[in-house]
């Protein structure tokens, strides 16, 4: 079935599904506490009517439509409607600050924006004068919108209504436009904030996206009866690939959660058959499990710890290819009944046949922990420019240290600087209006430079060491891989984010952002009063807690890589402050600049540093936190105490 798809487009796949799977659920949205379903036939009708409405408002081939908001069926429909008319979808990150949003919308020359609610509409209206190309602004949720009277502002229903009138006069208009479309048309303009510089818009054609989707289908078990949870940012290429392209190709149902706050609950209620999540989500799950276990009664905790140790030991033996003795088998069977399955059920993963982590590296300890509990967690590797996919791990080959086998139809080459180069039909058509950036990212013969350093191991798996420019050496020449150390640190439930420094320095030091929830609960248990994040992170008791956690982590690191000094941040890393990308990857260069004073203090041996941190609010306002923060030394691991975790 899949081979026949080359040469098609996303709207044509939608028409096919509306015919062959008319009554099967295509997308669901949880509203008023109930999962409301739309069949493929209804999906198509909604897309068609909205496309007609866009046509009635003058939307032409090559025009751009942007969506801003949480995952909502209508936002997915709007993007497909634009693609039906030969236009391009430009999903924007819903939490972008004003300047970022203006840059992307203007650079992409967006003429139509579909926004989820009043909050997003207000943001766009406040930027209206700077958006010269914008002609139509559409809102999904009408709440609070009654008093708005801008002439270019319309409700989603009004556009569809106008579309039905337009359709009555122009029979078969959308169908004819779809027939005109070619696989080479740009379907998606995906802006990548990147870990450096201004966002760049990667042009992905229907053929690019479908080729990545087909490569996925050939490597992994996907079924039309699958249930998928759409909770990742719509502007992330991973969501476009799974929630739109793969869903259209295979016909499985997408499920939109009720609100960002209910994702965890909705996940458990739905029990998706597969899950893709960035490391952040897996780390949160791990923390949640640890917290709940720490909170349990003595007997339960004893049980949990026994079976956890058993599972982790078995997982290590399994990954080394060694057989398990019969007693372990019996223990694991008991553990499955008493511990592993109930935990998977709590996490919403009892039905998941596979799960992937991608977007950034996940710490091996976290990876092993989740796998040992029976979650078929595997690594996937890709980037926006590769339509989201280059390699993944087949069943039975999961390994925290590699990113798996290169997908069918994809070639990988390692150049002289250890940089990973990729060539396939999924490689993008270039950056929109940035030929220089495109030339820089591509070799003359069609290879895309990923910017990641890596190699192929003996098993035939691709291994990513680090961002090519991040990996470095300590002053004495010892190799220094910051992400490796950071992931070790983040295994602690009390540490939310960590950035390690050490290139050309005598030893390793780290900036640590504490986890407000777990550290907050830990403090409450000790009757330690605090007001907010800044206050909590400056408590000497909390410093001691983190010092012990780092010492524990140091015990698992070779001596040169051990963290000798650290500082607790007085705020969490935030994409609005340029410290992390919207998909929460550390922007190392910005962090290094911003905390230059602290890094100096690390290596000058000072114990205090005056820090003024600028905070950017979502509406673009800025304010500054000024404080004196302590720089701390870590003692040798021997003195570390083990700290119980509470919720």
């Amino acid at each position, binding site marked *: 079935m899949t081979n026949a798809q080359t040469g098609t487009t996303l709207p044509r796949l939608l028409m096919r599904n509306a015919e062959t799977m008319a009554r099967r659920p295509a997308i669901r949205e949880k*509203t*008023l*506490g109930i999962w409301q379903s739309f069949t493929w036939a209804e999906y198509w009708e909604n897309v068609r009517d909205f496309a007609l409405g866009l046509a009635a408002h003058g939307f032409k081939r090559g025009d751009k439509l942007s969506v801003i908001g949480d995952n909502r069926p209508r936002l997915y429909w709007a993007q497909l409607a634009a693609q039906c008319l030969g236009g391009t979808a430009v999903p924007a990150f819903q939490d972008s600050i004003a300047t970022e949003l203006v840059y992307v919308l203007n650079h992409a020359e967006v003429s139509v924006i579909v926004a989820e609610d009043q909050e997003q509409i207000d943001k766009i209206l406040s930027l209206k004068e700077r958006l010269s190309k914008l002609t139509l602004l559409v809102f999904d949720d009408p*709440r609070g919108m*009654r008093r708005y009277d801008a002439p270019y502002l319309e409700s989603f229903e009004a556009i569809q209504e106008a579309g039905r009138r337009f359709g009555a006069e122009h029979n078969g208009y959308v169908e004819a436009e779809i027939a005109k479309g070619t696989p080479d048309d740009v379907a998606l303009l995906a802006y990548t904030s990147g870990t450096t510089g201004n966002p760049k818009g990667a042009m992905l054609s229907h053929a690019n996206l479908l080729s990545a989707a087909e490569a996925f289908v050939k490597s992994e078990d996907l079924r039309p009866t699958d249930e998928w949870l759409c909770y990742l940012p719509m502007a992330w290429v991973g969501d476009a690939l799974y929630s739109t392209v793969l869903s259209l190709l295979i016909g499985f149902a997408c499920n939109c959660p*009720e*609100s960002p706050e*209910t994702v965890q609950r909705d996940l458990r209620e739905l029990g998706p058959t597969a899950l893709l999540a960035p490391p952040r989500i897996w780390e949160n799950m791990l923390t949640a499990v640890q917290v709940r276990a720490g909170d349990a009664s003595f007997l339960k905790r004893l049980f949990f710890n026994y079976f956890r140790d058993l599972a982790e030991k078995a997982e290590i033996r399994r990954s080394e290819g060694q057989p398990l003795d019969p007693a372990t088998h019996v223990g694991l069977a008991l553990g499955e009944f008493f511990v592993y399955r109930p935990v998977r059920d709590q996490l919403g993963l009892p039905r998941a046949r596979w799960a992937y982590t991608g977007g950034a590296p996940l710490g091996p300890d976290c990876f092993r922990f989740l796998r040992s509990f029976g979650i078929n967690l595997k690594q996937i590797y890709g980037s926006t420019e590769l339509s989201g996919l280059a390699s993944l791990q087949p069943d039975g080959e999961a390994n925290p240290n590699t990113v798996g086998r290169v997908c069918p139809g994809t070639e990988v080459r390692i150049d002289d600087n250890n940089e990973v180069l990729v060539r396939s039909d999924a490689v993008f058509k270039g950056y929109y209006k940035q030929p220089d950036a495109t030339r820089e990212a591509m070799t003359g013969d069609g290879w895309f430079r990923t910017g990641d350093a890596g190699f192929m191991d003996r098993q035939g798996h691709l291994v990513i060491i680090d961002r090519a420019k991040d990996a470095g050496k300590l002053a004495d020449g010892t190799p220094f891989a910051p992400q490796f150390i950071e992931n070790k640190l983040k295994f602690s439930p009390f540490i939310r984010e960590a950035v390690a420094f050490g290139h050309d320095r005598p030893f390793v030091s780290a900036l640590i952002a504490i986890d407000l929830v777990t550290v907050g609960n830990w403090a409450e248990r000790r009757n330690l009063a605090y007001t907010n994040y800044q206050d909590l992170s400056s408590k000497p008791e909390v410093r001691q807690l983190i010092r012990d956690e780092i010492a524990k982590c140091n015990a698992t690191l070779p001596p040169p890589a051990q963290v000798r000094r650290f500082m607790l941040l007085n705020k969490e890393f935030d994409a609005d402050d340029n410290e992390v990308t919207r998909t929460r990857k550390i922007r190392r260069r910005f962090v290094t600049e911003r905390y230059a004073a602290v890094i100096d203090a690390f290596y000058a041996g000072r114990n205090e540093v005056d820090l003024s941190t600028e905070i950017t609010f979502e509406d673009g306002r800025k304010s500054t936190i000024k404080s004196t923060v302590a720089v701390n030394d870590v003692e040798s691991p021997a003195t570390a105490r083990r700290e119980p975790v509470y919720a």
Partner: protein
Amino acid sequence: MSMAQALESTAPELRPVQLAVNGVSKRFGGVRAVEDISIGVRSGEIVSIIGPNGAGKTSLLNMISGFYQADTGNIVFQGTDITRRRASEIAAMGVARTFQNIALFNGLTVLDNIMLGRHVRMRSGVFASVVYWGLAQKEEIAHRERVEKLIDFLKLQDLRKQQTGALSYGLRKRVELGRALALDPKILLLDEPMGGMNQDEKEDMARYVLDVNEELGTTVILIEHDMGVVMDISHRIVVLDRGRKIAEGTAEAVQNNNDVISAYLGAGKL
């Protein structure tokens, strides 16, 4: 044009008086809690009642909602004299309220607490409800839908199944507002909805009060100590002092009223 639309297109000060309080007084032994107060509240207005502690604000609300009976004077709601009516009857007529000290069932979920607000609108008897078939089931589904809309309106989706006792103060106030709204009230009496809240929670609550007023067209009578909020969202302000009304008008008029400045706000200006 429907009645509702016709009403809406009129400025609040021109709309008919929905609730008229005429010369009402209340004594507790020797204490004169409320003395000869008259207020007219028009449909769709937000009217704030302010005044120092013990000025009689809550007593006045208690008389409107039927918790106290006025000694003299009368209260007319949409043409009906409700002075001697029971609290439950007044609630059924469309007067809902929240309390200064939150009055929720701590052991019940958010959903159940709000569902309770629908109680006066339920028709099925005990027997039919136990059998839970036919009309009783249909009725329950219709009420649940209304409650879900309120949960959506107040953005409580993630707390639907949480026990209210475990929620923060600000959230409990929001749940209480939800329960009052579940009555489908024509007029909403809010007794210090922002008391004890931090700035963020106050701003959220002010937003919800405005949304209730604008989206649902509900008249609001508000007792509140936070002057910033009162001045921002009220169409009209009534000032009480020691049981008497000393001023009434727009935020600006009240702020410049000499009696108010000396009696309540102190010597300086706001």
